[in-house]
């Protein structure tokens, strides 16, 4: 098939874009095990959409292609462009503009015959008119009904079609803000495309944009949560092999410190609440409504008091605590602990020390945070001894990495 800038299926481009953006060190050979042509086409498409954000580097392993974006300087998420590349047929686009030209305001109501006639009339300019039979037009109108942009009503024996009422969205400042920070923000970007182009007054720090690529999955999960129904997910495991699970979506957990999004759901199969990364989900198929949704969600909300991240663990709660010293002038450390803790307590033991403690389902999730206090940790305790042991070993390894232990011992 000839190359086209537009695509029919988002899934393939989703993984290429993530690799180019998140990793950026893979060469053509890393991608071409399946098909060299497929890689070349996808790379060319992404270049066409994101030209200004693409970079190339020649290495001994070949040419590396990467997407490099300082999201603080980019005022709007460039990855949204991928969502605006859906392919269509010549008939689709022609019919689209004819239908909405005929149904130009909500007050205009037309029968199928009138729409058909209107389509013919609009082609008089052309030598060869495109023929649209009634079933094609009806199919398109049905599609638009499902999208909520066309409605039909029966008056006597005649079915009349009209466009749906729109609503006001001429508030570009709010749209520019929420299209960057709200879930499924790409929808805000679609709305902005309908308004005159303007410079955004906002910039964003700590702005993760990769999850954009999972917007369709997120949207389907929100829909399932709204309808309180279970879903069958096709998910990639750690070895990137797909498998399926049926589960009840309860909530979406979002990290603003690494950009990951997770589905928290209840599995009827093993009676557990567990997390699934959205970027590992390939597809979502809606299932049956679950009568006990509220009960399971309440259980998750109760658990949240003891969740540091998203891991619900397997062996119940463990206690973890660590003590840090902060001398005079370092009172901000106490404030920092208060600000950054997600559960548990922080107490000031005396003028120079404070302690964090919590009971959590997975103490391992706290380790990266505890490491950020390196230079002042005087004590670490955990009922899971392995955590303390590993923390200390890692610390020893860091000393070795920077040649510190040896120097200190001399």
């Amino acid at each position, binding site marked *: 098939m000839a190359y*086209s800038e537009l695509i029919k299926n988002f899934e393939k481009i989703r993984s290429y874009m993530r690799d180019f953006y998140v990793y950026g060190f893979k060469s053509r050979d890393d991608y071409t095990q399946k098909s060299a042509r497929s890689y070349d086409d996808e790379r060319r498409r992404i270049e066409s959409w994101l030209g200004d954000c693409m970079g190339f*580097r020649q290495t001994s392993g070949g040419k590396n292609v990467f997407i490099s974006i*300082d999201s603080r300087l980019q005022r709007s998420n460039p990855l949204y462009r991928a969502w605006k590349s859906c392919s269509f047929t*010549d008939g689709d686009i022609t019919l689209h*503009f004819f239908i909405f030209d005929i149904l130009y305001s909500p007050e205009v109501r037309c029968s199928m015959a009138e729409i058909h006639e209107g389509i013919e009339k609009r082609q008089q300019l052309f030598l060869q008119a495109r023929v649209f039979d009634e079933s094609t037009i009806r199919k398109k109108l049905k599609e638009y009904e499902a999208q909520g942009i066309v409605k039909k009503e029966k008056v006597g024996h005649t079915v009349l079609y009209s466009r749906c009422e*729109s609503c*006001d969205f001429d508030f570009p400042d709010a749209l520019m803000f929420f299209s960057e920070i709200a879930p499924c923000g790409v929808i805000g970007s679609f709305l902005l495309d309908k308004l005159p182009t303007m410079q955004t007054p906002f910039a964003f720090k*700590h702005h993760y944009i990769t999850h954009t690529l999972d917007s369709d999955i997120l949207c389907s999960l929100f829909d399932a949560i709204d309808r309180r129904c279970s879903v069958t997910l096709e998910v990639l495991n750690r070895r990137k092999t797909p498998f399926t699970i049926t589960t009840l979506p309860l909530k979406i957990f979002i990290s603003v410190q690494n950009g990951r999004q997770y589905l928290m759901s209840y599995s009827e199969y093993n009676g557990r609440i567990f997390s699934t990364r959205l970027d590992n989900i390939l597809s979502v198929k809606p299932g049956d409504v679950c009568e006990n949704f509220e009960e399971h969600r309440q259980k998750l909300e109760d658990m949240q008091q003891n969740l540091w991240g998203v891991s619900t663990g397997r062996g119940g709660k463990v206690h973890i605590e660590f003590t840090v010293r902060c001398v005079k002038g370092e009172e901000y450390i106490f404030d920092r602990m208060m600000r950054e803790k997600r559960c548990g307590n922080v107490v000031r033991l005396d003028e120079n020390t404070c302690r964090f403690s919590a009971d959590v389902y997975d103490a391992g999730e706290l380790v990266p945070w505890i490491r950020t206090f390196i230079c002042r940790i005087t004590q670490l305790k955990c009922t899971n001894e392995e955590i303390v042991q590993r923390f200390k070993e890692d610390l020893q390894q860091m000393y070795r990495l920077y040649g510190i232990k040896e120097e200190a011992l001399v």
Partner: protein
Amino acid sequence: MIFSELYGTYYNAVAKILSAAVERDVPLAQMREIIRSAAFEESVFEIEPAITSQRWNLISKDGKTNIEHKPTMPLTSLQKRWLKAISLDKRIKLFDVKFEGLEDVQPLFRPEDICVFDRYSDGDDYENEQYIKNFRVVLDAVKNNYPLKIKYVDRRGYASFIAARPLRLEYSEKDDKFRLYISGSRGMSTINLGRAEKCERLSENVSFTEKKTSPVSRNVTIELVDERNALERVMLHFAHFEKQAERIDDTHYRLTITYDGDDENEMVIRLLSFGPFVKVVQPERFAELIKDRLYRQLDCGL
């Protein structure tokens, strides 16, 4: 649901061409210009032939159309549902916005459907009336490029005044705070909007000087070893920076990250969080910052 041609760049570009053609004939050069500004880099090679070969029967080669009205389309259910969802967000109060026509619309998501689990807890107070007032003044000043007189509380708790031109309003999802970048007599600096007590337009009679300075960008190069999934964790964590990555061997990678010099302390902390899987290799000055912390940790006797 989201991936549909209705939201596509091509439909938008064609709508723009038709809008122009409804008023008067659109020459080919103008069509190309519209495509270039509204669509992708290579779109001109697809849209233009489709028009000139009359594959779409929407517009003739010489830029005429039988379309009678400027193309418009009502919002889809999905767009309305997203709007309804953001109308429930507490931050919407910052904007003077009225949502009309959404009364019967189900939100795409509700605040209780989402949990941002690692956001800092001392974010700005979006319900505070004075904060909202300040936000709107600042937003208007950024958009219209006029200087402000800002009364704010500094870090030591003292009230101060500053006359400055707001450059941009920056939001951090992690901190849940707005920071205002300003340019004043001391060059470029930032103010946390939450610390501003009052913001007002600077009177034209007040003299105002601006010293031009630019933010300082710095690089740090790290080597990482891919154990305990460190590669993916590091790459995702630093994904929002401008960066260059290369593979050294099967398990080792080198990553150069460009960061704002003002955020160096934060970078040190963020790199420390990866423990022994990340080593700062350049610049030496940055590596010393890590070493200094490790020396001090050694003293803690853990």
